[in-house]
């Protein structure tokens, strides 16, 4: 596939063109960067490192209706995801895209999750390569990803200075290129090589790493190991590490009814670090303390998920390390697992 280029002057135009879809792009409020649906290209903030909240919420919304009902009536109306329309997520990082590819496996495991899958089908992911790893805590390369990784993406943009190099990776990506045909130009011939060099350079700048080999197999043997108590002692049991993790996908289901009797059954993000996540109606809690919950979190990502899907449910984006308020560091935990 021939590479294209999108000059920076034309980005606004391109975004305007894409606004005919549901366009999601990074935006800044105060000092926080989050992905948002944007209507005005000026809202997009492309000079960002990585977003605080991963763009997963546009495939797997924090709160989403499963079906609507009127109490007492037998008619249930499933949410029609198609109404949301075609979506373009513009400018997400390779790790976040790869995370979606990983989570796809779960949502199509035996039972297809119609909402998630439909939304994924309707979504085109336009990635933005990390010319510089945005955080000292990035470690995507340890998990098979890369700052220039393409897994899960439909299109990859690379910041070449004055312009973005555009590479279509899938049919969806090509289609999008067509949409943007009047903004795109052919890329200079040597850009492919240039980009490769940049990728290597960027990978070289990744500062943190972990050798994941053997971890999935080893984890179950460390069940009773003292390390869990130690690494979890400071944990607050909050939702930061899981809500901000691009691969975390747990949810709760609750019904909400209005006085009128109209209501919906909806699902919302839940976190395995919350205390009430596993409590039974009897009050018994199989994971009563933060130790068990931390152990489950790590095991889920690094042992159970690979057991079912042959892939570790972590992409090394470093968010949990950056934002954990008490500096619980997954790499330190994994180091201890390796050393144990």
């Amino acid at each position: 596939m021939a590479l294209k280029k999108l000059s920076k002057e034309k980005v606004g135009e391109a975004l305007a063109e894409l606004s005919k879809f549901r366009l999601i792009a990074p935006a800044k409020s105060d000092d926080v960067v989050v992905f948002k649906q944007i209507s005005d290209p000026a809202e997009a903030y492309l000079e960002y490192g990585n977003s605080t909240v991963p763009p997963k919420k546009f495939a797997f919304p924090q709160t989403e209706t499963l079906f609507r009902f009127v109490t007492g009536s037998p008619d249930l109306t499933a949410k029609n995801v198609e109404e949301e329309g075609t979506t373009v997520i513009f400018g997400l990082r390779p790790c976040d895209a790869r995370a979606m590819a990983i989570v796809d496996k779960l949502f199509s495991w035996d039972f297809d999750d119609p909402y998630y899958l439909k939304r994924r089908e309707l979504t085109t992911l336009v990635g933005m390569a990390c010319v510089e790893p945005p955080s000292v805590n990035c470690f995507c390369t340890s998990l098979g990803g890369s700052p220039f990784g393409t897994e899960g993406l439909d299109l990859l943009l690379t910041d070449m200075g004055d312009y973005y190099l555009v590479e279509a990776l899938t049919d969806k990506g090509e289609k999008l290129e067509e949409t943007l045909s009047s903004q795109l130009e052919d890329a200079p011939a040597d850009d492919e090589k240039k980009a490769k060099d940049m990728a290597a350079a960027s990978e070289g700048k990744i500062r943190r790493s972990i050798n994941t080999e053997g971890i999935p197999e080893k984890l179950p043997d460390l069940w009773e190991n003292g390390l869990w108590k130690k690494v979890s002692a400071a944990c607050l049991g909050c939702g930061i590490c899981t809500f901000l993790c691009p691969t975390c996908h747990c949810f709760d289901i609750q019904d909400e009814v209005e006085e009128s009797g109209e209501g919906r059954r909806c699902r919302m993000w839940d976190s395995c670090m919350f205390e009430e996540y596993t409590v039974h109606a009897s009050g018994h809690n199989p994971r009563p303390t933060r130790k068990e919950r931390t152990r489950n979190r790590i095991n889920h990502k690094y042992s159970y998920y690979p057991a079912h899907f042959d892939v570790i449910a972590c992409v090394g984006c470093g968010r949990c390390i950056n934002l954990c308020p008490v500096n619980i560091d997954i790499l330190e935990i994994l180091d201890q697992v390796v050393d144990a």
Partner: protein
Amino acid sequence: MKNPYIPYQVNIIDAWYEAPGDRCIKTFKVTFADEKVWDTWSHKPGNCAMVGIPGVGESMFCISSSPTEKGYLRFSIMKAGKNTSALHELEAGDSFFIRGPLGNNFPLDEWKGKNIVTIGGGIGQAPLRPVIQWIRDNRADYGELELIYGARTSQDHCFKTEFEEIGSSDDCECHLSIDVEEEEWPHFVGFVPSLLMEVAPKPDNAIAVTCGPPVMINFVLQNLEKLGFTPDQVYTTLENRMKCGIGKCGRCNVGHLYVCKDGPVFSYAQLKEIPEAFA
């Protein structure tokens, strides 16, 4: 494929209380509001369903009737919290919604020709009931059937009339117990694990299935081992909190096993491998 989150409406044909008290148990006999659902529906003993009322919520329950009982499904539900309280308000003529069948089932085909002993406590008899019913309806396929069941008091016994009927049939042997002495109680007094030792079923060519409160299960498992049952001869069901029932929402796992998909039926051999199973 059907949207796995959308439940079917069922109508209550009959509903009655099995046991009184704060944590009372009510049994519902239901049929699909849309008769056509029966054509695609098939479940096996051990399967579960998400039961709920739109506007209240959903909870997982085992289907306590055997597929050999035609034209209805049964659920026996203990009042425990929000959903179950709302369900308990329903009566014959009302309806609720179910999603299923979910989960795995007891490997009854593999058990053909074997002697079966079921060991239940309290509401834990609910998943055992379809096993018993299945065997009685396919009596020739199986060896001896022995039932051990106990509850706190005679009042708390589920399926009383059925036990009476079974007890007087020559289908199988039936051993009942209560925890504390009561007047005119003709059967055993004491905890189920003790009753198990008293009955002492033989392990040869046998399968033991047990369900009940966690403490009971623990002792039953120990005692079965004492009686010579090997872990792969013993089956139980787990009940972990769950929301989706289809392996997505995350919380019901014990180790890498998802109770909603890999369970709720597990052999003791399987569980022994998983440290979290006995947390």
